[in-house]
């Protein structure tokens, strides 16, 4: 296990560095005009633009810039923002945001995981009954209706019927988080319902379940001790990944409810060509991604002892 962990860690570091290097070099392929706002392009002369780029080291060869970037990175210096918050260190810009996203994301993940799995189990248990059809209708509705329309419905109903705040507020976190959390949970609950039901139904049709039933095990025992445990394995693999990615926030929900989280940061930074922010966010997302996959693998082995991460001798 230790050997596997070390190997995966090394692979993860290489993957992250590869992603960051590619993104860094791709950003440098764009014309340097993109470093300036429309206003600056209007007002600055060619010479002034050249001077500014030179002063920021942006006219050096991309590989010199890359080397300098890694040198700074080794000193935990991710640079300063050019556009999102002019002159402010990137760590400071990101710092306050990921906690907000993570808090909302974890709450909604917990809600959707709980509701999704419970509803999925009930749907599987009462397959083709009324409750199953209702659950399926909900899943189809959530997936078929465009997300923004669903969010608008939640907003209108929540704000008008329940007098909830229409947007997130740092001065009223509890109440103002309700609508964003509901929106975040809606889609993922449907996802967990769908996959739990599907895996459970698959398991229910397997021979070992028929045998267990023939041996006289109670339906309850069969469902929870055997079916659910086996059906949960594929879901569990993505659980750490989902939990870590809550830090990344949700672009749509955060934009819709003005949540000051990470969700909109990457797109804002790309559209404003704030390269320091883009690089830092890419490092963060890539690291979270590989860590999530790794933890998912580990979790699977804990839930299902039959799964091994390293090959044993004499196995085929």
């Amino acid at each position, binding site marked *: 296990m230790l050997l596997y962990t070390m190997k995966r860690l090394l692979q993860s570091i290489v993957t992250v560095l590869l992603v960051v290097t590619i993104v860094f070099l791709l950003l440098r392929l764009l*014309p340097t*005009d*993109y470093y300036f706002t*429309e*206003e*600056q*392009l*209007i*007002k*600055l002369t060619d010479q*002034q633009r050249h*001077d*500014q780029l030179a*002063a920021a080291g942006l006219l050096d060869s991309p590989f010199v810039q890359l080397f300098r970037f890694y040198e700074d990175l080794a000193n935990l210096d991710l640079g*300063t923002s050019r*556009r*999102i*918050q*002019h*002159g*402010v*260190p990137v760590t400071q810009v990101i710092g306050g*945001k990921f906690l907000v996203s993570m808090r909302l994301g974890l709450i909604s993940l917990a809600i959707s995981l709980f509701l999704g799995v419970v509803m999925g189990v009930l749907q599987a248990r009462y397959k083709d009954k009324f409750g199953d059809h209702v659950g399926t209708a909900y899943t189809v509705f959530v997936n078929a209706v465009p997300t923004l329309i669903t969010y*608008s419905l939640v*907003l*209108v109903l929540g*704000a*008008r019927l329940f*007098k909830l*705040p*229409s*947007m*997130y*507020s*740092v*001065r009223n976190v509890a109440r103002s988080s309700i609508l964003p959390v509901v929106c975040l949970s809606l889609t993922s609950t449907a996802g967990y319902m769908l996959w739990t039901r599907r895996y459970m139904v698959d398991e229910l049709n397997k021979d070992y379940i028929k045998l267990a039933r023939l041996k006289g095990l109670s339906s309850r025992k069969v469902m929870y001790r055997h079916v659910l445990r086996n059906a949960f394995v594929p879901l569990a693999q993505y659980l750490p990944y989902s939990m870590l990615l809550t830090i990344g926030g949700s672009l749509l929900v955060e*934009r*819709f*409810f*003005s*949540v*000051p989280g990470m969700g*909109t940061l990457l797109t804002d930074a790309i*559209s404003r060509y704030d390269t320091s922010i883009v690089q830092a966010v890419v490092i963060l997302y890539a690291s979270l991604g590989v860590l999530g996959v790794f933890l998912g693998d580990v979790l699977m082995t804990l839930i299902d002892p039959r799964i091994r991460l390293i090959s044993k001798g004499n196995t085929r």
Partner: protein
Amino acid sequence: MKRIFALLLTLAMMLSLAGTAFAEPITDFVTYQTTANEMETFNILYSQYAKELDVLTNCIDGLLSNDNYGNLVPGLAETWETLDGGLTWTFNLRKGVKWVDYQANEKAEVVAEDFLWGLEWVLNEKKNLAANMSMPSEMLVGAQEYFDYTKELPEADALALGLEKFQEMVGIKAVDDYTLVFTCKAPMPYFATLGSYNCLYPVSGKLLAELGAEGMKAVFYDTLWYNGPYTMTTYVQNNEKVLTKNPTYWNKDIQTFNTVTVKMVDSVDVAFQMYQTGELDNVTLNEANLQTIYRSPSHEFHNHLNEARPTKYSYQIHLVYDKKLEDGSPDVAWNTAIANEAFRLSWYYGMDFTNYLGRVNAINPLNCTNYCYTAANLVATSDGKDYVQHVMDLIGLQPSSETYTRFDAEKGAAYKQQAMEELSAKGVTFPIQMDYYVQGSNQSALDTAQVLKQTFIDCLGEDYVVMNIKTFVNSLIKEVRAPQLASFYINGWGADYGDPINYLGQETYGKDNAFYSRAYSKIDLATDEDLIAQYKEFTALVDAAAAINDDLDARYKAFAVAEAYMIEHALVIPLYVNISWQLTGVNDYSKIFAAYGIQNNRYINWETNKQGYTTEDYVNFAKVYEENRK
């Protein structure tokens, strides 16, 4: 008799307003901004965007401000004067004004030297990256030279500069703590109006010493020092900012809110939803929401639709005189056609833009009519006549709420015929292809372009011109303007200071600081001699007007002649002013309303009503305002 009548009318209107006067005013104002307009800097000396200046103008005071009629009023300067026709200007600062931190703790007194520190920052290329330096460098002695000096210095040396070299080179002097003297390059009778613009704003020398140059570049709401009517007590990016009344503010006579909260919303639709649930005190309506309310008399807000006042921007069709094709070669057909005066005049007279104006203001399109290049309310002659009215008299047009008065189908057709004959003789074939660019992701702009295209078809005919709607992805400047691909642009100019030169100077021929000529029309690259002669004539008229510094009336009238010349030769075609519709608890007529500068969004002396104003209230506000103006 006239006076008595005016008095009675005002009295009657005041009585009719009595209902609203007794309505409960808003004490904690909640407004919104879309997230695309989030602030990027808190340094008012660096900012060049309304999204920041609309907030920061409430936090920091400059030398002067404006009132709700656009008049200059004292700010940090109690009085100001020039004794030599505008060459040197003396500003006498008020005593006892405090710099405070965001929690209103006193930090220092505002003194004349703070304005020196402010201007040094603006003119130091390494500190302010050339932002806001164009006007002081054009107007003040030694300003351009100091900018060039800092440009040559190594970064560290430039950032470490104090005031010694600056005072030696630049025409600004702190005579004592409360007297500030500017020396202009030439007499500039309008220089005082620049006192309301952020390029001349102060920054405390003590704050600079505390933060250092790098710290000042990254100044944040909680490290900034304030001297304005509000301090920013909360800032959460893309969420909300809260401005709180500054208890130490020098002007105790003004009315302010206890707090102003600006909520950052995803779209106007969300803002409208929030207005309906009482979470916002105002909302500007998009076309869909406006039409829904307007078409339904039973709608709860039908009687609360209020037409906003025009923004300070004047929108024009800017024609391109050196257009290129996508392969980089000159677009000979277009360049030849647009240099022909009859071709331009066929647009000027032959186009009825009413439907296009309907895209700006769906209810009252003709209220957005704009027949002049300069925006109204910028300056007036001593008899109170607006500068724009002088221009309108010269071109013989008056706005009407019934018809688009510039439109003259017969004249347009005659010029079309003339242009076709003249241009055919030069080998131009018809129809002329014209390329107009809009952002591909902007559906509203695409729809508007479609209306414009239809207007060309209806008014001038497809045998004459064909408008091709083309799209750019992200940047008009990089993707369209730099390669000179557009045949024309529609863009608006808002003045930075109070003089017609700030408008007309942008269109002159052969001048580096003529923004529109250099960046859009590319007239300096045109080759048609008749066109160049007209531009030179226009430029000579502008120069002649600008040289009149001892008689403002004569100056403005001379500028009006120049502007009329430009319009009558259709060198630029005036198009519209922006007037939107809103639901609001704020009387716009009580707000600062200046055609230049950064003062318009100061949350001071606003007359408000928690219940929101009705359409009738607003009609009365407008009448009272106009009466009081007289």
